[in-house]
């Protein structure tokens, strides 16, 4: 188990390096550079060169990247070109919101996905057809479109939930929860159906295994055979899918945060992209990659926890 975690962490290092290097090198290809886009900078060539030197832009790219990496390892991701604030502070203020959404999506889509998938494997019929229809909708409609429809129904028409905005958990847990419901479901719709489909397939496979018949023969109730043994075994391949689904859900938060005006990493990244705030964008990319690594790690750990062959 420990070995599994260590392996995953070791594998994550090249991922981190690749992502940061990629964004760094890409930025160096940018037509014009940051110093030129600074509106408040003096326009004289001398001042421009001085700023370039100050920002280290006159050095070779790899050397710049090396500097950036060393500073990043010490928790310094530079300052935002646009707002002048420290990037780390900006990101830390925002990450809680994104993590709240991601955690909500995880809880909703895992519980609903497993339940619906298992039900449709066992009953087929109506539940199966509902999942099919939902999965078509989840696949076909963009998450931000679904978000708007949810706002129209639950915020505008029914007025049950706030349409936009975010309340901090520490300000009011109830309002915090209410501000998360619609964003979470907008992202989760797609994820639920992916998980439900995988659960249905693996549940169908597991319920045909010999040990299920043996468990029934031993006198266990159907409830115990299905929900304890069947689901536990079916969950193994589902865990891998959950990992992939969560990574794609992380991407969807970018859109959904934008729509619901949530002050998260995603909306920050879009602002940074709009303003060409390279340092901020690099920082945001790093944070997103760290979340991806955390998701992969969680997948590995839960896989090991669920599968005694890996654990022991």
């Amino acid at each position, binding site marked *: 188990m420990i070995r599994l975690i260590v392996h995953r962490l070791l594998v994550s290092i090249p991922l981190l390096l690749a992502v940061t290097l990629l964004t760094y090198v890409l930025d160096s290809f940018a037509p014009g550079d940051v110093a030129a886009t600074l509106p408040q900078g003096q326009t004289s060539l001398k001042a421009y060169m001085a700023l370039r030197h100050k920002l280290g832009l006159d050095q070779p790219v790899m050397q710049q990247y090396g500097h950036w990496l060393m500073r990043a390892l010490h928790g310094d991701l530079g300052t935002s070109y646009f707002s002048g604030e420290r990037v780390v502070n900006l990101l830390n203020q925002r990450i809680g919101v994104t993590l709240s959404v991601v955690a909500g999506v995880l809880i909703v889509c895992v519980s609903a996905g497993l339940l619906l998938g298992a039900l449709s494997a066992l009953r087929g019929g109506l539940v199966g057809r509902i999942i099919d229809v939902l999965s078509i909708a989840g696949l*076909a409609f963009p998450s931000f479109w679904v978000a708007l429809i949810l706002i129209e129904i639950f915020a505008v028409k029914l007025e049950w939930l706030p349409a936009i905005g975010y309340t901090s958990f520490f300000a009011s847990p109830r309002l915090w929860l209410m501000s998360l419901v619609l964003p979470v479901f907008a992202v989760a719709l797609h994820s639920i159906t992916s998980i439900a489909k995988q659960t249905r397939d693996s549940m169908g496979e597991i319920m045909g295994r010999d040990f299920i018949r043996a468990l*029934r023969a031993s*006198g266990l109730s159907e409830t115990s055979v299905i929900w304890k043994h069947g689901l*536990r075994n079916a969950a193994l391949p589902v865990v891998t*899918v959950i990992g992939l689904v969560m990574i*794609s859900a992380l*991407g969807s938060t970018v859109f959904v945060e934008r729509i619901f005006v949530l002050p998260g990493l995603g909306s920050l990244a879009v602002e940074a992209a709009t303003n060409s705030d390279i340092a901020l964008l690099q920082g945001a990319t790093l944070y997103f990659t760290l979340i991806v690594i955390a998701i992969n790690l969680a997948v590995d750990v839960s896989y090991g926890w669920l599968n005694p062959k890996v654990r022991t």
Partner: protein
Amino acid sequence: MSPQAGSASAAAPSAAPVSLLRRLLARPLAVLALSWLGLVLVASLLAPWIAPYDPLDQDLLNMRQGPTLAHWLGTDALGRDLLSRLLYGGLPALTGIVEALVVAGLLGVGIGVTAGFYRGRYDRFIVQAVDLVMSLPAIVVLLSILSIFHNSMFAAMISVGLLGSAGIIRVVRSATLAVGSELYIEAARIAGLSDFAIITRHVIARIAGTIIVQLSLFAAVVVLIQTGISFLGLGVPPPAPSWGGMIFDAASVLNNDAFMLVPPGVTVALSVLAFALIGDGLRDGLAERWMQRGGAGVTTPNRASAPPPAPMLAPNPEAVLSLRGLVIHAQGRSQPLVDGLDFDLMAGETLGIVGESGSGKTLSVLSTIGLLPSGTVVSAGEMLVNGGRHDLSDPRRLQGLRGTVLGMIFQEPMAALDPCFTIGTHLTEVLRARGGLSRRAAKVRATELLREVKINDPEDVARRYPHQISGGMAQRVGIARALALRPKILIADEPTTALDVTVQAEILDLMRALATSNNMAMLLVTHDWGVVADICDRALVLYRGKLVETAPVAEIFSAPQHPYTAALLRANPHNAVPGAELPTVADVWQQQALIP
């Protein structure tokens, strides 16, 4: 990002694209999907001629109108005609799809095929790189790209192609690996064909179907990404029409005019769906090609036409279990698998049920606990056991008998244990759920049970998982579980077939000892006369679902009454004469039939 990389059968064998297209056209949904995409393509290309208005023209007198005769899909907040904007927005969307597909296709096929073809270090590097790219948060990478190349949908779509190629490389590589190991590739190599010729003419031709499927599924993802980027206002700059931009416009007036969401949303959804349906249709088409037409002409079971049940024998009052008139059908077949079986199991007796594979012996015993495999049903049959009369055609009613009256052990001891739970849990859960024991008492009892089945160090074994014990030990655990609720009858389905010969004897000894000490009757399914001779008091011979003969074991061996029994005995490998051919049942049976 990846077009369902995992779910596509990686090594799916390919079909010629032409026949694949024909298969696709045989599916109404796929035809609809193709027509929709054709419609979108034509309408987008002809937008300048067929659009009723200029997409930027503002009709300030008719703002935020629902559909009218003048504006079929209504107008937006600036009075711009939504139908026109939708039509003009089609071209950037389609262009983006083509750009991303070209990049992903060229890279995906080029790298995937060569990696699968040449293997070695290059292949290992590619696999690592693909894993890395696939765990990138794609949208964030795109944001970086777009911050550098402002409003360049071209740059974004090329990047989408690059990122998406990873998933395609993965699938194409697997397909190439599968094809590459086939003999004709080797033959082509020996014949002196260049690598390039082999790859283009043989490998790619073979996996073309797989490639098209992947690209089609990828296209569905690209539509969503393209829409997403223009929704964020990072692709096509705002006044120009785009599908994503139209959704953004609709968002800003959501309170007043929710209908504005419909035209772009439905267009996008239908396009995504069309690509996905075509991909799925092609994939099914590929799979179909490799499936023989099976299960054709299946008729539904017809109880009415089943033969009238034979007059039943009166149950034997001394029997612990009496089975009467058991008929088992495979669903949709009229020929029964078990046809009117009657037998009695006496107290303390061990009854062997003997027959060839397919004679219905396992089905017969499984029906007593209502656990027939799916696709088989009991059409008739009654069981008297434990002072009760049970209709075997209603399996749910038999659940109460499992474990408490009828304990069962199986042929594959390892497969009968849940790999996710410890040996101890297998026993304690039954003891707690049905035996009513507390957690602690169940644990103590489980250890006792393991000791009863002659497992040394039961505490240690209880903590182990199934994969950590041997097959022989797994069967002992299976027996312990079957005994947990002190059943009156132990049913064993070929309990020693999957075990080593030395272990077989130990298990049989154990079963015999436990049957005696617990005063259990045993029902033992086997095809092994050695087992019958070793442990059974009486044997029952089944042939094609019918009872052939039943007699005490000594009589069966010395004087088989039925020619089939004699044939089965002579085919016993234990009696084989070294050097002589072992007679099969069919051989002997035929000889017997010829000699009256």
